[in-house]
């Protein structure tokens, strides 16, 4: 086979493609709960559901711990974990709760909170569910516990139950 520039280009293209695929495979672990622990949440910008004020990482850095909880009015399991969130916000002042309203309508979310009680210190909206991708969220309810440096110390997939609730209390003492 004679070597020509054209052939070199074709081969490099193929190698590049295969390499990217290979890297893509290795990378594909952002849905793995274990791997996200220890990661730092990088800059995000969300707006509050009540007054469109922006909520960013600066706000969370003031808290000792923040539990970021993803919820929606249409999500049935979110209702089952709600009592734990309410308890948490009453019992433990070190933990502030940021609720991110996922793919929901504003009015529905507000009436949801009026009906069940509002455990959140901040409520942000993510109407299109795009911002939630950065937190590695793929279904709700999901929660992420971060410290004042915004390092993730725990991630909970699915509704918070008694066991998870106690684990949060222990971690934040």
């Amino acid at each position, binding site marked *: 086979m004679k070597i020509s520039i054209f052939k070199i280009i*074709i081969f490099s293209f*193929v190698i590049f493609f295969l390499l990217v695929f290979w890297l893509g495979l290795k990378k594909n672990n952002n849905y793995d709960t274990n791997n996200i622990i220890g990661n730092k949440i990088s800059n995000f910008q969300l707006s509050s559901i009540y007054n469109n004020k922006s909520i960013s990482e600066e706000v969370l850095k003031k808290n000792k711990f923040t539990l970021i909880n993803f919820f929606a009015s249409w999500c049935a399991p979110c209702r089952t974990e709600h009592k734990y969130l309410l308890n948490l916000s009453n019992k433990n002042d070190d933990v502030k709760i940021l609720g991110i309203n996922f793919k929901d309508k504003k009015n529905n979310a507000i009436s949801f909170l009026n009906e069940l009680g509002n455990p959140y210190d901040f409520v942000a909206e993510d109407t299109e569910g795009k911002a939630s991708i950065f937190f590695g969220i793929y279904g709700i309810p999901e929660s992420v516990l971060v410290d004042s440096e915004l390092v993730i110390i725990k991630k909970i997939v699915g509704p918070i139950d008694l066991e998870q609730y106690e684990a949060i209390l222990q971690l934040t003492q």
Partner: protein
Amino acid sequence: MLSNIGEILVFLILASSFLIIYNAYLDIKIRNQIVKKTIYNLSLFQITFTILSFFTLIIGFIHSDFSLINVYENSHTAKPLFYKIAGTWGNHEGSLLLWINILVLFSFLFLIFNFRHNKKFRLCTLIFQNILIIGFVVFLLLNSNPFSSIYPVPLEGLGLNPILQDPALAIHPPLLYVGFVGCSIYFSAAMASMFSEYKGKEFALSIKSWVQISWCFQTLGITVGSIWAYYELGWGGFWFWDPVENASLLPWFAITALMHSVMVLEKRNTLYAWVIILCLLTFILSVTGTFLVRSGILNSVHTFASDPSRGIYILLFLGMMIFASLIIFFNKHKKESYNFNLKTRETFILVNNWFMAFFLVTVLVGTLYPIFLDVITDVKISVGPPFYNIVIIPLIVPFIILMTVGPQFKWINSQDIKFNKNIFVFFGAVIINLFIYYFFGSYSILTNLIFIVAIFLILQCFLDAKKSFSKNKKFEYPRIISHLGFGLLVLSIGINHQYSLEVDFNLKVGENKKVNNYEIFFENIKIEQNKNYKSVIGNFKLTDLKKNSVQYLDPEIRVYSDPETLTYEAAIKSRITSDFYLTMSNVSRSEYYNIKFQNKPFMIWIWISAFIIASGGFVQLVLKKNEN
């Protein structure tokens, strides 16, 4: 027990592949044109073992033999028999076994039916095909064994994803597989052709039927998948430019280009290198699609059974295939001289190929770009319909014009052709479009153009049909049928897109709602207990106030028990002119239900025209059989 039988059969497939390669290699050296009897016998054994292994798995599913992990994970005793059987290929491991079945089947059929062709070429094809078979069987054994057993044997299975329990989806994978895996045979044939110097017209004739068969099945498979999405996913659309749908479209573009250019190779004995490239590309794209879907590298509604370790293996295999085909191609490629007149059919076929290549690249870029961006820069984006609509739709206009005019030309030379009639037809199309525009409401310039060219193509196809019927030119039928189907498809998609009505609202029992000319009345709600799910059925009365006609629609919410899942079944009333589409979903803690009502004109014509496109290919096969 079944586990052992299945595994032994798979090992026997592997052994017969090695024996076939060895014997074929020995036989190539013998200078005659008769293929040894041993090779036929070995192939016959191989196909028997393969089909038996698949039946073993089906039996495992029918008898709910949960000692097989695969059955345990994907079946359940309460499932209807039909879905137990369909469950065999509704999962990764079983579908890989189906994949191997088709590889072996095509290998066997190619050997038997191509007896007129050169011996060295046939044996080389057999060798390459068996290398592919070995690759996939090893993958099956190492990574995705459907016959792995589990002990202690569980009493009950986990069940099949309820969204997959649908008749359209039960036949969708086998159809697509025949289409995609069928491409393997002319991948092997192209490699063999380069090795054995069996080129030109003869080569074209040897692969033509196989290209047509796999094209037909791909077209059908994609259509059935689209129908499933329409009925089952509850979105009321038929194409979402979802990465997995795109993965099935990529080989389709390549194969459509191939199906056209293989005719040029047959008639004019030119474009050999291009046909070889397309042969190789079609199967490479099929495997790429499999890689994208199965490895979990893409996230989409369709991604099922994703597992990175599978990805590594498929990627390795894909890499080897691409490198092997590139190296062989570059080594064997000789410069061809091209001699095309502008006004000939072959020139237009070449233009078709350029369009197909463009569509292919567009969809490829749209599908792969998010992956590349994610890997290289960590930015996550998704490429959606707007991108494809902007890039592809305007090009449909020149594409259809050339598609209409092209077949009017003859092969090699057609200087004396006049276009008076075509211009006449074109004006006919413009007038029909004006009528639609005037009576049904205005639309954009681009939509106008699309309607005009689509109608132009349809009218011209009817004229062509009349002409070839009176002159008894049967060989023109398949082309006319498929092109007519395509024209209809574009027109119905256009109309559907233009005149769809979609509304969303909340309703409780006893209430009614007016939408345009329609009144929707929520009569009552029923709860039914079925074999493996509970269903909440809403009864709706839909009154067309203009025509004073009444329809009843009963959408459903199904609660499946194993695994516990909710699915929303749309109520669809298909009519010749339009579909009524109604879904309902519950709003928690209230007696209201969320209702989505759509009126989608010409919906059924989209499916009909897709079937017409595919049937063109089948007509071709039947005609060819009669000719022989």
